[in-house]
C-alpha cells in the first residue's frame, strides 16, 4: 500500500524557474526510498512540498491519504522532517531541544520523558544529553536533528541530505541507525547526492535532474539501464587539454565519458578492451595518471549514462 503518492507534482518559482517538473512517484509503507540527484536537481523543493512548507504550483501529493494542499495538518502529523540544516536551538541542550520539540509534535506529557530517553539512546547521546548543542560535534548535532524528526512517531521520516558536513564515522553511524529504524518498519524518504548513501540505504531509488525524475526503480533495475557496461575511473595527476573528452569519446566502445574534479570517468561495453586506448590518449596529451579502476556499473554510472554528467557536478 502506498504511503506517499505524488501526481504530476510541479513547482515553478517567480521568474519562471521550474524547480520540480511533473513528478509522479509513490513510496510504499515500510520502504526506504532514495531520491538521488546533484545539487539543484529539485530534491529539496520536493521535500519542502511533501513537508507542507511549499505549495505545489500544479499537481498534488498525498501522505497517509491526506493531501498536502487540502489537509496539511494531517500530513504534518504523519511525517517527521530532518532538514538539511541543523534546525535546533544551539544554546539549549539536546534534552531541552527534544523537550521543546516534543510539545510541538504532540507527544503526550506522560510519555514525553520515556520517549526522549528512548531517542537519546537510539542516536547514542544519552550520556551527553545535558550538554549544549553548540558544544557538540557536527555528527552529534546531526543525530539530534534526526531524533527531533522521530519524536512524533511519524509514519514517514523525510531526510533531506542529513549527512552534509559530517565525518565518515558519524555518517556511517547515522546510516546504520536509519537502516535499523527502517528495519523496524519506519518508512524513509532519503535525499542525497551521495550515491554510496543511497545505495546502502534505499532498495528503490528515483534519480532527479533539472526538476524531473529521469529514472526510478530498484537499484538493479536502474543498473540495467546502463547494461553490461563497465565504469572506468582514472584519477588524473595533471590537467588534461580541453579536447580530451572528444578524443576519448571517439574511441570505439566508449559510450560516455566525463571529467570532473581530477577524475576521468568512462563507460564502455568492455572496459578492459578500451582501457589501453584511453590511456594512450592521455599519455599522448602528456596527462599524468595516478590510478585506474574498472568496476561494475553503480548509480553514479547510471546518472552519467542518463545525463552525461556526474552527480557531484
Amino acid at each position: 500500500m502506498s504511503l506517499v503518492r505524488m501526481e504530476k507534482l510541479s513547482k515553478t518559482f517567480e521568474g519562471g524557474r521550474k524547480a520540480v517538473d511533473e513528478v509522479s512517484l509513490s513510496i510504499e509503507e515500510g520502504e526506504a526510498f532514495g531520491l538521488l540527484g546533484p545539487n539543484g536537481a529539485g530534491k529539496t523543493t520536493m521535500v519542502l512540498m511533501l513537508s507542507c512548507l511549499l505549495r505545489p504550483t500544479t499537481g498534488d501529493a498525498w501522505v497517509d491519504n491526506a493531501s498536502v494542499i487540502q489537509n496539511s495538518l494531517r500530513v504534518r502529523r504523519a511525517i517527521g522532517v530532518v532538514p538539511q540544516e541543523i534546525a535546533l536551538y544551539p544554546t539549549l541542550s539536546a534534552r531541552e531541544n527534544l523537550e521543546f520539540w516534543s510539545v510541538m509534535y504532540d507527544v503526550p506529557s506522560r510519555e514525553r520523558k520515556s520517549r526522549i530517553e528512548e531517542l537519546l539512546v537510539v542516536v547514542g547521546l544519552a550520556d551527553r544529553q545535558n550538554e549544549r548543542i553548540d558544544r557538540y560535534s557536527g555528527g552529534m548535532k546531526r543525530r539530534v536533528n534526526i531524533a527531533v524528526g522521530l519524536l512524533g512517531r511519524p509514519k514517514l521520516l523525510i531526510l533531506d541530505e542529513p549527512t552534509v558536513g559530517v565525518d565518515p564515522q558519524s555518517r556511517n553511524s547515522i546510516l546504520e541507525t536509519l537502516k535499523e529504524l527502517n528495519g523496524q518498519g519506519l518508512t524513509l524518504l532519503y535525499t542525497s547526492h551521495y550515491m554510496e548513501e543511497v545505495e546502502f540505504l534505499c532498495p528503490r531509488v528515483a534519480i532527479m535532474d533539472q526538476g524531473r525524475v529521469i529514472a526510478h526503480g530498484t537499484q538493479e533495475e536502474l543498473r540495467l539501464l546502463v547494461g553490461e557496461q563497465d565504469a572506468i575511473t582514472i584519477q588524473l595527476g595533471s590537467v588534461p587539454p580541453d579536447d580530451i573528452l572528444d578524443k576519448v569519446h571517439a574511441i570505439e566502445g566508449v559510450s560516455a565519458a566525463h571529467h570532473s574534479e581530477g577524475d576521468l570517468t568512462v563507460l564502455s561495453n568492455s572496459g578492459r578492451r578500451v582501457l589501453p586506448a584511453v590511456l594512450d590518449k592521455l599519455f599522448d596529451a602528456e596527462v599524468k595518471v595516478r590510478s585506474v579502476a574498472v568496476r561494475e556499473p553503480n548509480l553514479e554510472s547510471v546518472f552519467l549514462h542518463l545525463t552525461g554528467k556526474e552527480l557531484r557536478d
Partner: protein
Amino acid sequence: MRKALAIAWKDLVVLSRDFVSFILLLAMPLLLILVLGTAFGGMFVSNTAPFQITLAFVDQDNGEMSRLLRDEVLQGPDLKEMIRLHTFASPDDARQAVRAGSAAAALIVPSGFSQAVMGESKTQLEVLANPDSTIKAGAIRSIAEAFTTEVMARGAMVRLTLAELLSRNLIQPQEAAAAAARWVPELQSLQSQIRIQREQEVAPGAQLPGAMAYYSISMGVMYVLFAANTAGGSILTERRTRTLLRLFSAPLERRTVLVGKLLGVFLLALVQFLLVVAFTALAYRVSWGSSIPGLALMILATVFCLAGLGALLASLYRSESQAAAIGPAVALLLTFLAGGMWVFTGGPQWLDILSHVSPVRWSIDGFLTLMSGGSLAQILLPIGVLLGLGAVFFGIGFLRIRKSYDVA
C-alpha cells in the same frame, strides 16, 4: 495555547543563555537610571522631601515695596513653608551662596525699586539661578515676575487716581507720595495673587517625582523597547537557523507559532520592566504611586505597546544585523522625542505636542501622574492610547510576519 506558551518560554530561555547580553539588557537600565538620576538630580524636585526653596534675598531698596515682597509675599502665609529665606547684605554675598549651592536662587531688589514703582521710571528685580536647580529658580522667577507685574499695574492705577485728585485740588502734592506708598499694598492683598506656577499644576499635598523617578520611567521604558527589539530579532534568527521552517512543518497552526513568538516578545519586555520597577523601588526608593491597579495597568499597557512595536520592527527587518542596528536607534529616538533624556520643561508648545507622537511620552505621562499621587481614573487616556497603539503595532507586525512566511 499550550504550544504558543512553550514557544514563548523557549524564547526566554534561549535569550537568557546569551548570558552577557541578557545581563546587560537587564542591568543597563538600572545603571543608567542611577547615573542620570544622580547627574540631573538638582534639576528635579525630590519626591520624598517636601518642595522647599532656599532663597538668598538682598534688599538694596529698603522701601515699602521690598518690605512688601519680603514680608507679605515671600514670607506670607502661602509661601512661608516653601521658601526658606536667607537675607544677605550684598549681591556678591548672595551670588556666592548660589554658587556654593547653599541657595537655589537669589532675588535682588535694587535700590530705588519702591520709588520706581510709584513713579514712572523703569526698574527690575534680579534673579540669580543655580544651574543645578532650574525648576526652583524658575519658581522664584515666576514669583518675582508676578510681583513686579502686580505692583506696576497697581502703581499705574494709584498714579492715575492721585493725578485726578491733584487736578481737582482734593489732595496736596506733599501728601501724594505718602498716599501712594500706603495705597498700593492695600488696594488688595498681594499675597493672594502671587503663586508659583508649580502650585497650580500639582494637587494639594501631592509629591513631585524626582530625577531618579523620572529616569526610572524613561530608561525603563526605553529598555523595554530594547528588549522587545531583541526578542523580535529572534524571529529572524529562527528564520536563519531554519527552526522556524521546522516549526511550520510540525503539526501546529502557523498562527500558533507567531502568537508564541509575539508572546515571547511581550514576556521579555514585561520581565524587563517589572525588574526596573521592583529594583528602583527597593534600591533607589522610587515611589511608583499608591494606585496598584493603575500601576499594573500602566505597566501592561506600556509593555503591550512597546512589545507590539518590537514585533512591527521585526516584521520590517530583513536581517538580524538590521535589527541590531535599527532597533536601538528607534528606541533612542523615541525616548529622546518623548523628553526621556531630559525634561522639556519650558520648551515650545509644538515640541510638547510633537513629543506625543512617541509612545514613550504617553508612558512617561501616565507613570508621572501615578507618581504624583494620581489615580487610575487620571491615567485612562495614556493607557487607552498605549493599548490602541499596541494593538495596531501587533496587528500590522503579525500580518507582515505571517505574509513573509506564507510559503505553503
